[in-house]
């Protein structure tokens, strides 16, 4: 929310000194002393330096007290604990590959990956994979990097049964890879589940669960103690643990993998489709992304383990996906309710992302169904890319600038915009304040800036209706023609589609686009052809299905930089093309 640093008092030495002198002068006892005199000045300097230490410490302490201003990782670890989020230390890199030649790939099978410098890293499967009948390859085999695999280590005798804890003295493990299994004497190893939040249910009282708490030198596993949540470990139980020690970011970007353990003629293919985005290996982190946890932890607390609001869906999804090695936030993971669509699709909540492989998407949607309101249907929708362009006009302070100077200014502004307002394949991008940013950064040369935002997109010949839904008012006036597009239809007729709302109220209604037939560059309104409709204020255009050639839709968003207080809030919601 707020990233402004807490500032309890003055931090500059001269300001501190001036403030002290001002106070001293205001005191009846001392008002006539000469504080600029050499000796007094020395004493004041001394006290100001002393104050400087107080100031530094107090301000740092105050900032570290709050989630949004804390800088130290240790502070955030503590601040996020009451919010139900455990900040990990390292995160292992992951890769998804396709493996042939083996009907099964056991859990903890080791693969090796080689980076461009020839350094070899170990990757492990973390579950059993089996090929289907008659299928030669196993798709989406997830490999997790680990410099060391602790596999089935028996910790029965190391557990503190009184406190129901076990301490892992290694700060470099990937917490998401911890597996705890307990044999209660029947020879069956039962999986116990790691919990981050107690939720609101008392069902956890009798469940096989444990919590993980981070300390400076490692992680402590907490099992259920008397009057607490979860089952306790008893002295007749056998307990074993598995986890990976991570190499962090150094195992990212690995694209060559080999297997050294599986029997047979193993072949490895790389899955490069959008449904398997983990290639080359990625996601490895040396230290936690603190900005991510500052963003997601308050939302996870507010969700209280249920998905009700959009932020709840985001937080629940993010925490769930983090356990699978994905870090998603509002930039790469979008949530929107069906009520936001035009036309609305009530009772449904959509998530869209390019970050997650297909099996994990299916798992996520199934998980969300268990967390959201009954009758609400969470669904995944494929991402659709759209593009925006913006034309910028600037008012110069000096009309006598040379052509070369103007060109240099143009390049500088363009580079500034590319650096700050050019986001690729992101959700929820805000373009607010472009004009102000330009005038503030080029204040010497520019007195004002004006921006027009343009949406354009090309469409291939399509036998289905093309729907453009940009959910923002379009710059279309009533009582006037606005050309939306032109193309040649399947009968070879050149047509131009124009919007012509008759009244202001029609800007908010669906009206038919007028179809003009072009012959020898002469337009004639067709009384028989109807190639689409438009709702200007909703930003909704429907064209076709009659195009035989590629055509471009090109419209301006209804945004005026001349209007004070106007913010650009452009949201592109993907068309609902495919549902899983």
């Amino acid at each position, binding site marked *: *929310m*707020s990233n402004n640093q*807490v500032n*309890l*008092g003055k931090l500059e030495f001269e300001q*501190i000194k001036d*403030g*002290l002198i001002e*106070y*001293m002068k*205001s005191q*009846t*006892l001392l*008002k*006539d*002393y000469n504080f600029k005199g050499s000796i007094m000045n020395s*004493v004041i300097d*001394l*006290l100001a330096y*002393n*104050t400087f*230490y*107080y100031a530094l410490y*107090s*301000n740092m302490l*105050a900032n570290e*007290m*709050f*989630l*949004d201003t804390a800088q130290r990782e240790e502070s955030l670890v503590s601040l996020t604990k009451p*919010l139900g989020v455990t900040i990990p230390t390292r995160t292992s890199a992951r890769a998804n590959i396709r493996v042939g030649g083996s009907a099964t790939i056991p859990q903890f099978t080791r693969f090796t990956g080689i980076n461009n410098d020839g350094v070899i890293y170990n990757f492990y499967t973390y579950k059993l994979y089996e090929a289907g009948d008659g299928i030669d390859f196993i798709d989406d085999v997830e490999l997790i990097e680990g410099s060391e695999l602790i596999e089935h280590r028996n910790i029965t005798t190391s557990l503190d049964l009184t406190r129901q804890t076990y301490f892992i003295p290694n700060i470099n493990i990937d917490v998401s890879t911890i597996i705890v299994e307990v044999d209660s004497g029947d020879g069956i190893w039962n999986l116990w589940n790691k919990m981050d939040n107690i939720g*609101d249910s008392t069902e956890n009282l009798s469940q096989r669960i444990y919590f993980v708490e981070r300390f400076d030198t490692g992680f402590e596993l907490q099992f259920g103690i008397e009057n607490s949540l979860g089952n306790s470990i008893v002295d007749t139980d056998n307990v074993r643990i598995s986890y990976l020690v991570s190499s962090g970011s150094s195992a990212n970007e690995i694209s060559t993998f080999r297997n050294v353990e599986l029997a047979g003629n193993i072949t490895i293919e790389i899955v490069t489709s959008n449904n398997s985005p983990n290639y080359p290996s990625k996601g490895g982190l040396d230290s936690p992304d603190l900005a991510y946890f500052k963003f997601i*932890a*308050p*939302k996870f*607390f*507010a969700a*209280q383990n*249920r*998905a*009700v*609001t*959009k*932020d709840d869906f985001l937080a629940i999804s993010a925490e769930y996906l983090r356990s699978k090695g994905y870090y998603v936030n509002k930039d790469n993971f979008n949530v929107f*309710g*069906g*009520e936001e669509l035009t036309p*609305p699709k*009530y009772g449904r*909540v959509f998530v869209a992302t390019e970050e997650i492989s297909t099996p994990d998407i299916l798992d996520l949607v199934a998980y969300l169904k268990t967390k959201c*309101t009954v009758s*609400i*249907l969470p669904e995944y929708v494929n991402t659709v890319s759209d593009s925006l362009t913006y034309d910028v006009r600037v008012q110069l302070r000096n009309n006598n600038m040379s052509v070369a100077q103007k060109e240099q200014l143009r390049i500088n502004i363009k580079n500034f915009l590319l650096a700050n307002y050019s986001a690729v394949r992101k959700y929820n991008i805000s373009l607010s304040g472009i004009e102000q940013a330009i005038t503030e950064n080029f204040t010497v040369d520019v007195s004002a800036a004006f921006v027009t935002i343009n949406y354009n997109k090309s469409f291939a010949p399509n036998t289905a209706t093309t729907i453009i839904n940009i959910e923002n008012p379009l710059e279309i006036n009533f009582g006037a023609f606005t050309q939306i597009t032109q193309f040649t239809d399947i009968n070879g007729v050149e047509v131009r589609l124009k919007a012509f709302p*008759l*009244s*202001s109220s029609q800007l908010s209604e669906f009206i*038919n686009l007028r*179809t003009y037939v072009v012959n020898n560059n002469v337009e004639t309104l067709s*009384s028989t052809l*109807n190639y689409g409709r438009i709702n200007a204020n909703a930003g909704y255009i429907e064209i076709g299905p009659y195009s035989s050639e590629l055509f471009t839709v090109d419209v301006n968003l209804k945004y005026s930089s001349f209007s004070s207080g106007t913010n650009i809030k452009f949201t592109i919601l993907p068309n609902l093309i495919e549902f899983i």
Partner: protein
Amino acid sequence: MYSFLQTAGISNNNHAVNNIVSLLSDTIDETKKESAVELLQFRMGQNVNYNNVEECGTLYDITKFIPLWVVYEKENRIGRLESGTTIYDFLQKYYDWLYCDGPSGAQYGLSNNILDLIDVKKTKDNLVKNLYSAYGDSFSGIFTSNTLDVGRAELEQFLTGIRKNFYHRKGTEDGLRKLFTTLFVIDESDIEVEIPKRLIIRLNGGKFYDPNFSFRTNIGDTGDYLERGDLGGSYLNYSKLQDATWFHDHNYLVFIGDKYNGNEDIAEIYRKSNHPAGIGLLFGKQVSDFTPVIPDTESAQVCEYPMLKNYAAYGISGTYQALGVINGATFYGLTACTGCCGASFSGFTGPTFRFPSWTNLTTASQFKDINILDFLTLCYDSTLASPNNNLTCNGCP
């Protein structure tokens, strides 16, 4: 507080200052201009609301650090009616300033337990938003809005116990009322939550609320379906046709009175904090605000007012004589009259025509997506020619 400074490693600096200034005390004493005796009061260890600190006085007393010979000398000077001001008086003023969180002090939060900064009831006004950033993230709009006026007391009350008082009620009407009454001090009686689906017309088996038209009223088999718990009877005569925005099964209306009527900031905070995703919401509206869409008489439109006579041929029944067959369906109606015929279909000669705006949408076999409102208003683009123009019924039955 002193133990805190020791922990911070700052206490050594204090001792250093004491030692140095004690060496300078005689020199400073020579520069004195005025004689006064300060009575130092010891006021340590009190937790004070940061926002109530105006005049601080002495919050950290250094009396115990003053050497006895200085106290003795000071008393002697005062006894001789000379100035009693010493370097320690100077230092006490320094600490008065350093430990003061009022406007005249250094304001480093040293007058209180610094952990009070994370106590919502004691912290500074400008730090409340930092507490909300951790525990009430969805309410961030309060601190950036220029149109919302939420008091400190309300912010404190709402954040205290927010998990039990609000998050556990999230998505419910109870949560909604808690939010608006506690945080925005809106009177409970001003808040209205309406569920339009209870007003939607539904199949009711032919039973009507109006006793003149009701059936089986003697066994109570009629009435509001929500009161009855089934669809056995409904207020058919007061019901609304279902639409996509106001009256449908996945919608609710929230009205919060006049205090923040039309305020988009509060609407956004509500959507972010309590609105269930996937459900329709009309914020700031009541069912009584609903106005059916009516023709815009000021715009360039002309409207037709359908006469039953003109459309009689649309009826499919045996009441009238058969006029013709379209796609296998026999149409019955009034006999065609001279000059009444518009479009004709495969020998059908009834007095019917297509509505001008639908010319491009309908074919003999497709009805497509004609706006249902057109059936009611029959308004069309004035540039199109209406087949009703100059229509006379000379010769019509």
